[in-house]
């Protein structure tokens, strides 16, 4: 069985998708919108990148497709929804730990934002 650490470092798209589904199940277009909103429009995932990432994340067990659907009146597009797995959440946390450790190391070398 794979450990979360085996997947690190996460590709940026993967990390962003994990953040997008962290609190609720979303369909593809919602993920794109959420990532764009979260990054202030800086990162706009293309459909291809999104589904390529999703395919791999499903294989890696970071996500699952859910069978639950929102109320029919809300679910006008009959999409597939994606939910983060406990393994996905653990992996995201492991990535955060890795990044903050890295940032701590960088700061210790004087690479703090705002300094010359």
């Amino acid at each position, binding site marked *: 069985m794979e450990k979360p650490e085996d997947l690190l470092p996460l590709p940026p798209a993967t990390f962003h998708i994990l953040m997008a589904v962290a609190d609720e199940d979303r369909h593809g277009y919602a993920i794109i919108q959420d990532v764009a909103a979260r990054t202030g429009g800086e990162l706009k995932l293309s459909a291809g990148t999104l589904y390529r990432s999703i395919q791999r994340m499903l294989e890696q067990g970071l996500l699952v497709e859910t069978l639950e659907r929102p109320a029919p009146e809300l679910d*006008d597009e009959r999409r597939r929804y994606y939910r983060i797995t406990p393994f996905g959440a653990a992996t995201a946390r492991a990535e955060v730990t890795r990044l903050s450790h890295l940032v701590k190391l960088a700061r210790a070398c004087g690479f703090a934002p705002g300094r010359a």
Partner: protein
Amino acid sequence: MSDNMPCGDVAYNVARNVQGHNVPRYYQMLLLLYPASFRAEYGEEMRAVFARRLRDAAGLPGVAWLWIAAFFETLWDAAAVHSDILRQDLRYTARTLGRTPGFTLTAILVIALGVGANTAAFSVTDFVLIRPLAFPEPDRLVMLWENVPQYSRMELSPANYRDWKRMSRSFESMGAFTTQPVNLVGQGEPERIDAAAVTADLLPTLGVQPLMGRLFTAAEDQPGAAGTVILSYRMWQSEFGGDAEIVGRRLNLDGSPSTVIGVMPREFSFPVSDTRLWIPAALPEALYQDRNNNFIEGVGRLKPGVSMEQARAEMNVIAGQLERQFPKENLHTAATVNRMRDELSQKSRGLLWALSGAAICVLLIACTNLANLLLARGIARQKELAVRTAIGAGRERLARQMITESLLLAFAGGGLGVLVAMAALPLMARLVPNTLPMAGMPAIDARVLLFAGLLTLGTGIAFGVGPAWRMGRGADLSGLREGSRAGGGRKERLRSALVMAEIMASVVLLVSAGMLMRALWRVQATDPGFRADGVLTMRTALPTPKYITEAARDQFYASVLSEVRRLPGVQSAAYTSFLPMTMGGGIWPVSIKGQNLQRAGGDVASMRFTTPGFFKTLRIPLLQGREPADSDTSSTPLVAAVSQSFVRKYWPDGNAIGRHFQFAFSDRVIVGVAADIRVRGLEQDSEPQVYLPYKQQGDGNYPFYVPKDLAILTMGTPEALAPAVQRIIRAADPEQPVSNVRTMAKIVEEQTASRTVQARLLGGFAALAFLLAAVGIHGLLSFAVSQRSREIGVRVALGATPRDILSMVLRQAAFVALAGVLPGAILAYQAGLAMQALLAGVKPDDPATYLAAAALCVAMTLFGSLLPAWRAVRVDPITALRAE
């Protein structure tokens, strides 16, 4: 796979109807760039996402931007998805191949042999036949020859060359040359150097600029001009260490000083690869007198836009005019114009094509074998594939996986194949004729590597697609059923057909190789008319003006021959103009009783000046009279010994002694008759021979024919004698170079050298094919037996004897073998007809060869079926049935 799958249409309609948007077809087309499996999974989603984006896009610019972005994103993303799958497949393939190392190694080796044989064959064929010559615009370069009955490519006489050049309009320029080895003295040991004498316009016609210095001027190409010389790059490097100050240096060539005026570039080579320097031809006016003195070769560069046909037509009109003007000398003399690239004997060409054909046969057999291996493996893997299908892998993904597997195998084998080709190249390179203006040797270069790469790709696809296609169709859940008999009758039929094709191709190769072998034996068995064993030969080309007088030469011959004859073991020694099989030319017109018989009419004979002892040394039987003797001098009547065919032609009654004939400007009387020898080589008919006494050559006459080849008959090993003889020559003249030291046996052996190589190579290919076909038969039968073990078990349980089982397996083998041998024999006959030029008179329906090939195939079939038959006989009915 098309996108018009029902699910695609449904998705499209859903998107359109639900959203009220007509998601344009263009996006659907863009999605085609994705792998079908990915499209089937996410196409619908992606269309929906795109539709939403389109709906959210602001105005026309927004829509336009969205489209542009979608286009480039799709290109990038699709490539990324493809590479994901490729990586995945490669990992999977490496794992599965690693689990079956026997299969993997066999497959890689088989491909390596197939690709290696073809790569080596291609590198030689490309070098000799395909690649353009290393001159600017080589397609406009032609060779010019006189075309007379019997010789379509006769050298030109200077007079005819001069008239052709003056009268023709098709050529931008024209030049001429003759090969003329020179003696180089003063650079260490005296040395004999292969050189060419060229007219001043020859090198400009070829269009090559010197690396250093300059080319010859017209003034330097005049008789009496100060000596000049241009060096080849190789000569400049080997003799002068690449001396940057070489231009202007003086060399001693043939005893007279010559100034180096230039060095040619490394890749320049003309007329043959061995030519090491060039001197001006400087033809004296006297040589323009005789239109039958043919010794120069013409080179022309066509004007841009002038076709070969136009040039040929014009040259033949000119030749016709000259024939009317000089009806005697130019009787039946037309012109031959050949593209320089095509100046290669039909034999060399045929030989290379035959080899390429053989190599392709080997590759086909290799591919067939691989396809068979993969089919068998596919059948064995049916369960694995059915499992993969069951957990959701589409057929497209499975087929793709199979192709990846075959391509991975192909490229592993192809890489090894290039190494095989590198190892085989030295042998193959011996087939490159040295009569081509090409420097260097064939090598595995970028061009050849590209060929090998394409070949490997083609091979991978050829043996991979069939099984992959069957796999795509055949993988269904039936594979999961326990105890199912994998592999239906259809698959076995296909496998049998593949093995038949292998046997067929190996029969073609076996018969072809067999015929070439017989041709080789036949040529080797040809009686040359002399005996070569025990004879040592070497050449001392006596330079003019030092040896222009007969007296000077006589002194040299006398001192060398008398000393050599005194060496222990030496039985006899003699000098001649040219040893047999070293020079095909030296042909002069013969006339009897003043009749003007013409060269064109076939009244010709080869002329050689010899010292006494020549017949004895080469053991040519003297049939009548005596040989030319020391007593035949300029003050005695001109005499000659002639060959038997000469007598047969002019005096069929056989009484020739004392008869007169006119030859080489003089009346001569016959004093002896010798047996015929093959002057032109083992495979070519020779003209009658005329032997003239060396003391009747005169001063400065026929410098080309000055006796220069020394032959020594010894009782011991001929090679061991060489140092002593060379010492004797050095004592007689310290400045005289000695070259071409070799035994007469070696000279005769070289006659069949290319045949030997070709028979060996084709034999090698045939052996390879044979081996592969045996592997094929063995594989087919083993598999059939293992698939039918239950059936065999039932038969045994029902009372079949081991004999019945054995005959069942052997029947199958015999059927496949017979079905391959028969069409193979028909194809081999066709191949034999195509190769007839190489067969030296062996008939393409030679029964012995066919019988031998058929017997080999039967033996191979038996051998290949031994192990499977043994296994079939040992099938235990209880075990076979319990497995159910």
